[in-house]
């Protein structure tokens, strides 16, 4: 069944049809939540909450990119999660910046151990760099450079203008570049600038 038919069926209450949409988009949704929130547990909570909200609000979907509509809900779920954490006195936003279990989540059985270790180092450093960005710059950077959305889709997913997308993305890239250049020695040698 194509996506449009699945959306129509799901909007009539067909949960099985909606779950097919979940299977198609859960990797993208979870990755976005993980990059925004920084930990696996919080990303799981936000992703699950986002899919529940999406199912309940399918009647408000008015066509266009379903992916962008869904990622907007994921983004808002992440922002809600961060607001809850800020209100909770026992938790800290710093807790979200590093996940000790993250290493175990990136095992790819097809990858050589040495390559895996290199990519793991790179990933950890990049995740720290992303976490250092303001939340809206973080979101636009992940949507563009990791998830590969177009400027139009990002504008729809973040409910903002193309100009704002351009400006936030440029600032995010510049800040991440400065962050990485300051920490060149922490990057695996293969990924250092000038080692092409």
């Amino acid at each position, binding site marked *: 069944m194509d996506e449009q038919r699945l959306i129509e069926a799901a909007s009539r209450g067909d949960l099985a049809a909606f*779950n097919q949409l*979940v299977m198609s988009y859960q990797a993208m949704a979870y990755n976005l939540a993980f990059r925004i929130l920084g930990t696996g547990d919080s990303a799981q909570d936000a992703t699950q909450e986002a899919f529940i909200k999406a199912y309940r609000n399918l009647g408000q979907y008015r066509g266009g990119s379903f992916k962008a509509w869904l990622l907007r809900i994921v983004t808002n779920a992440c922002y809600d999660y961060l607001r809850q954490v800020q209100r909770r006195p026992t938790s800290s936003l710093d807790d979200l910046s590093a996940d000790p279990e993250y290493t175990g989540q990136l095992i790819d059985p097809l990858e050589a151990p040495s390559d895996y270790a290199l990519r793991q180092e*790179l990933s950890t450093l990049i995740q720290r760099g992303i976490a250092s960005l303001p939340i809206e710059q973080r979101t636009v*950077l992940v949507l563009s450079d990791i998830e590969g959305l177009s400027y139009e889709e990002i504008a729809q997913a973040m409910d903002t203008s193309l100009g704002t997308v351009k400006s936030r993305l440029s600032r995010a890239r510049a800040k991440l570049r400065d962050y990485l250049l300051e920490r060149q020695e922490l990057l695996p040698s293969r990924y250092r*600038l000038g080692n092409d």
Partner: protein
Amino acid sequence: MNFRTEDRDQLLSAYLDGQTSPREQARVAALLEDDPVARSDLQTLTYTRQLLAETPRVPVPRAFTLNESMVGVRRPERAGWLAWLQPAHLRLATAMMAILLVVLVAGDFGTRWQASGHTSASALVAPAGGLALDQGDPTGITAAKTATTESGIASPATFLGLPQTTLLALEVGLAILVLLLLAAGWRMTRA
């Protein structure tokens, strides 16, 4: 060419994504030719973007599919002949019923208003006629009264010739139907 650093970064970032206009592309070309710092910035921005693209995706730890308990009470599926019903259909039906109600109420009100004007005019004319009849033939008084009664006091003109009680019942019924359709549409959209 003078640029603020932020403007230059924005231009170079959009250039990397192919999101520049022909005019902006010309500006970038001139900038890269003239300014070694801009060339270096473009190189490091490209490098940053490549690193991000190489960042491994995080494997999904579990399926996020939903079950009925997660989404609360399951919405009853509209089976059979109701399956075609969409919010747009309900909106159309609501609008049509509302228009019919407005036409009915306006027609009813207009007819009553016209009838009351006609009755007043008759009331002004009747005493003169009655006087003439009274003067000519005392038995004509009964005839005049009968004629006046038949012309509209006891049986006023009604909209579409429907009895007043039927009109009132139709208006109330339509108003209730419009409210029910509005509630159903709201619930369908919200569900």
